[in-house]
């Protein structure tokens, strides 16, 4: 039900990228993938939308809607954020560096 799926770039079977908008990427610290970061999806007004924890290999993904998004990562070692615009359904790559 609401269990957060394991965060990998492999999309679940049945994900239709002609219909769904997926934002996915990797959190890195000093170029190295960073697992266990709290990755927050903020909408175009900066409002919180969703949060996941990056996988051991630093990956995360969100199923969302077209629009302007900010992905913000929080970790004991530092914070960082990156912006991404989704023009329509599809897979959008967004990487976040924390420092």
């Amino acid at each position, binding site marked *: 039900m*609401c269990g*957060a799926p394991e965060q990998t770039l492999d999309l679940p079977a049945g*994900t239709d990228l002609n219909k769904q908008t997926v934002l996915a990427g990797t959190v890195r610290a000093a170029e190295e993938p960073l697992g266990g970061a709290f990755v927050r999806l903020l909408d175009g007004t900066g*409002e919180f939308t969703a949060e996941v*924890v990056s996988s051991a290999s630093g990956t995360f993904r969100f199923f969302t809607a077209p629009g302007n998004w900010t992905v913000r990562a*929080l970790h004991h070692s530092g914070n960082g954020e990156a912006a991404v615009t989704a023009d329509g359904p599809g897979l959008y790559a967004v990487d976040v560096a924390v420092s």
Partner: protein
Amino acid sequence: MSRENVLVTPDWAEQNLDTDGVVFVEVDEDTAAYDAGHIPGAVKINWKTELQDPVIRDFVDKGAFEKLLSDKGISNDDTVVLYGGNNNWFAAYAYWYFKLYGHDDVKLLDGGRKKWELDGRTLTTDEVNRPATSYTAKHDQDTTIRAFRQEVIEAINNKNLVDVRSPDEFSGKIMAPAHLPQEQAQRPGHIPGALNVPWSKAANEDGTFKSDDELRALYQAAGLDEGKSTIAYCRIGERSSHTWFVLHELLGHSDVKNYDGSWTEYGSLVGAPIARGSEG
């Protein structure tokens, strides 16, 4: 009800890890999180397999709840400190659930796992074994804090309905939080007249609750009528437990119910009124 009675700080928790009569319990959305590292001494409750009836969509009955807590080594007079991931969603759900069966002394760890991890505090994979107890629930489910579908429909235009999902779920643009796939069976939208106050507005970035003054201002600005009863809902009832905790436990509103059927039930009801768009 005051904040000190229902919330503990990470500092307090760290100082009371070995205190007799204090039991830490982790409840996560990601039910594997505990096994990868937990607060020293904490036991785990799996919200999916241990708090739900295995067949029908409902909670376990009083006897099963008593057995669960007995097996976990929790006594009637223990102080239970709940914490979990995802800003304490499922810890708040478990808090409300413990209150359904009348456990007296339950508290939430402010900020949950996130704040604990961001602070760099200790997590361990050490196995925890607490001796079994014989727990007795105080009463059957307290339905003064649990709403069912018919009273939700009757509450339209009569009570405060607080939809705590994200604005896009409220308007009907998406069907589930954005970390989940979107295919769902129900109709999108919200209950007519509901106020949209996303649960996240009650929390700081690190997962801790905002101050009482900030929380009061939040619901006042949203148009919550304090003279009326309130029902909170989300998709499956966990995020609305977070808001139930804020309204009932932190702000002390007297008649607040959590509708755990939430949108996965309401949005599937034949003939139930639904509104779309960003307005109530």
